[in-house]
């Protein structure tokens, strides 16, 4: 009779680092990591030595000194006596502004074009194919410059609005389209306007609540309440009523030509429009392809099954196809949002003062602190990109297939 003994307990010997396949890969990774660290340490040390030899040092003191330059496009107050740090914040806000606007419109363009490209209508689908192919295959910088150049060349200068018989006139006497940008009326908040705003916010919440209720009712009992017109009524009617009850407290500040420019109202500068529009249609073309891929990834049987149940095409798309397609669409969509944010750094081509224009452009050049500015820029873009990625991944987790 044989007795089974335990196999000898594996004792770790140093030679196993090379001979044992279980450890060998770790050994080589550790060596590679060490070599990498030494190489970077050498280069970093070299940099610091060279800077010291040239009498330069890394210092961020310049962020606290007055910037001395003006910025046209800004979301918060800024004056040329404010610091370089504040100028950088203006730039950051401008970058975020164009990134957020760009992401929203690119998504709208992309979803529309992606869905329409699969349309049964030959003309519509071919038009969308042409749009996608043209915009995807020409660099975004070219688009930014083309749109900006066309804007400045085609739209009239403010001068054209002057005189007794101006060559251009304002749209509805409210909007002025000039080659410096678009001037819009700005709301003026009179006394009592708070109530109107509160009512408006309440009705938005009401719309969301109604739609959620309707969806729940549909899922639990199968009764389909109308969504479209009740939403619109809840959205608009109370606010309009309160607006008149309170005695029209909100009025409009219409831009008017005074001196060299239009004064009053809100100015949306030509560089912002050009950059925003170019980023939107360019990235929209990529998103269209993602959407198309997502839709085509959903089995055709789903459409046919939904059709057999008597659903109309629009509803099939909204209720059956798109929710399933989202699982395929969202991950590449994340990288398109990152692309918009990063491509917004091309802003300087049209003189839009984003973070690359302020901190990485004028501040860098006026102070000569190239290394410091570039490091800050990298830190900023990295933070933004990782944040977008994190938020979108949270959203992605909510639409992934729930396996139970």
């Amino acid at each position, binding site marked *: 009779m044989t007795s089974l003994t335990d196999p000898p307990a594996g004792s770790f010997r140093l030679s196993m680092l090379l001979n044992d396949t279980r450890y060998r890969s770790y050994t080589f990774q550790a060596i590679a990591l060490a070599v990498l660290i030494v190489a970077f340490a050498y280069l970093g040390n070299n940099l610091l030595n060279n800077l010291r*030899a040239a*009498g330069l040092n890394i210092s961020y003191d310049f962020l606290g000194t007055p910037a001395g330059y003006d910025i046209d496009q800004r979301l918060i107050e800024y004056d040329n006596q404010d610091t370089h740090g504040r100028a950088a914040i203006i730039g950051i806000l401008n970058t975020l502004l164009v990134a957020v606007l760009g992401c929203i419109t690119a998504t709208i363009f992309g979803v529309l074009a992606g869905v329409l490209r699969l349309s049964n209508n030959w003309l519509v689908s071919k038009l969308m194919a042409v749009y996608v192919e043209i915009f995807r295959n020409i660099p975004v910088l070219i688009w930014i410059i083309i749109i900006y150049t066309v804007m400045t060349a085609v739209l009239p200068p403010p001068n054209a609005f002057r005189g007794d018989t101006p060559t251009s006139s304002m749209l509805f006497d409210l909007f002025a389209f000039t080659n*410096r940008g678009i001037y819009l009326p700005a709301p003026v908040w009179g006394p009592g306007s708070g109530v109107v705003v509160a009512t408006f916010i309440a009705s938005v919440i009401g719309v969301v609540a109604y739609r959620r209720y309707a969806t729940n009712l549909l899922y639990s009992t199968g009764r389909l309440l109308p969504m479209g017109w009740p939403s619109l009524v809840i959205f608009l009617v109370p606010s309009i009523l309160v607006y008149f009850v309170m005695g029209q407290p909100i009025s409009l500040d219409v831009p008017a030509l005074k001196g060299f420019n239009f004064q009053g109202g809100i100015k949306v500068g030509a560089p912002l429009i050009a950059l925003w529009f170019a980023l939107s249609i360019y990235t929209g073309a990529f998103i269209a392809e993602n959407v198309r891929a997502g839709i085509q990834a959903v089995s055709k049987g789903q459409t046919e099954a939904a059709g057999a149940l008597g659903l109309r095409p629009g509803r099939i798309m909204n209720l059956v196809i798109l929710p399933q397609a989202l699982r395929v669409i969202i991950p590449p969509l994340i990288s398109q949002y990152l692309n918009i944010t990063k491509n917004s750094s091309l802003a300087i081509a049209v003189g839009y003062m984003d973070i690359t224009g302020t901190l990485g452009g004028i501040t860098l050049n006026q102070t000569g602190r190239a290394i410091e500015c570039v490091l800050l820029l990298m830190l900023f873009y990295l933070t933004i990109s990782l944040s977008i990625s994190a938020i979108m991944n949270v959203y992605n987790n909510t639409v992934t297939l729930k396996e139970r």
Partner: protein
Amino acid sequence: MKKSVFLGALTVAGMAAGAAAAGTLDDVKARGTLNCGVTTGLVGFAAPDANGEWNGFDVAICRAVAAAVLGDPTAVEFVPTTGKTRFTALASGEIDMLARNTTWTFSRDVDLKFTFVGVNYYDGQGFLVPKALGVSSAKELDGATVCVQTGTTTELNLADYFRANNISYEPVPIETNAEGQQQYLAGACDVYTTDASGLAATRATFEAPGDHALLPEIISKEPLGPLVRHGDDEWGDVVRWTLNALITAEELGVTSANVSEMASGSGNPEVARLLGTEGTLGEMIGLDADWAMRAIATQGNFGEIFAKNIGEETPIGLARGLNAQWTNGGLIYSPPFR
């Protein structure tokens, strides 16, 4: 990833700083060409002609230095730089000298560690407006939209001027002169501001130059001159004294036409020292005896360079004004060759 990107940038910067070591004169001699930073194109100061040959007032300085150091005015590699890239290009050693209508300021000299070797053009910032605008003074520009090149002293002066006069403006930041010209002509800005010489040069290229006027206000001092890196005084001396040789030549009446004649005996000892027939100035600066003669013979003296590129006979049409010799009531003045 984060760390590696960070260190990657340090690497690039580190290599750039390493290249900026001393010994530029030897480097240039060994290389056989001079790397000279110029603008991306400003007619009269530095712009390539139809054959791709660089010409202009700043270009002549580069060529004079190449003639003095290498004996060949064509041995120049012209590196076009923008307002934003010029200092990095010089600091990193990509170019040996910068001759790019760059204003000599305290912070550039002291903080950015550059050495301005002299002034080849005394300029000031002005405003260009369409005559149709009906403006006769910069003080009337309240609320105007102003095109300005970013990253320049111009941008800072503009902010200071409007602030001091308590009027407002909207800046339109632009990158290059060509872009500014296009925006200005399209009416996207009411006013174009940069150095008055640059405005005159730009206006000369318009289809109807007569429709545009320079406002009388000159709002800043803009001494423009060539510059080199700190810490290489020998090379700084070469560029400084080449410029001074051109200036002195005009003062002493030495021209590209009569330079060889003057060298063979003019009786004026300073001319003899300048042209290397007497004394050892060339040896002291690390060059041969007729270094200055070559510069003057190939490029002409300061006055000739001015007249040929930007003077009143050219489309740019700049008067000598402040840039006349000190003997004619201007500011152009070279220390003696002694």
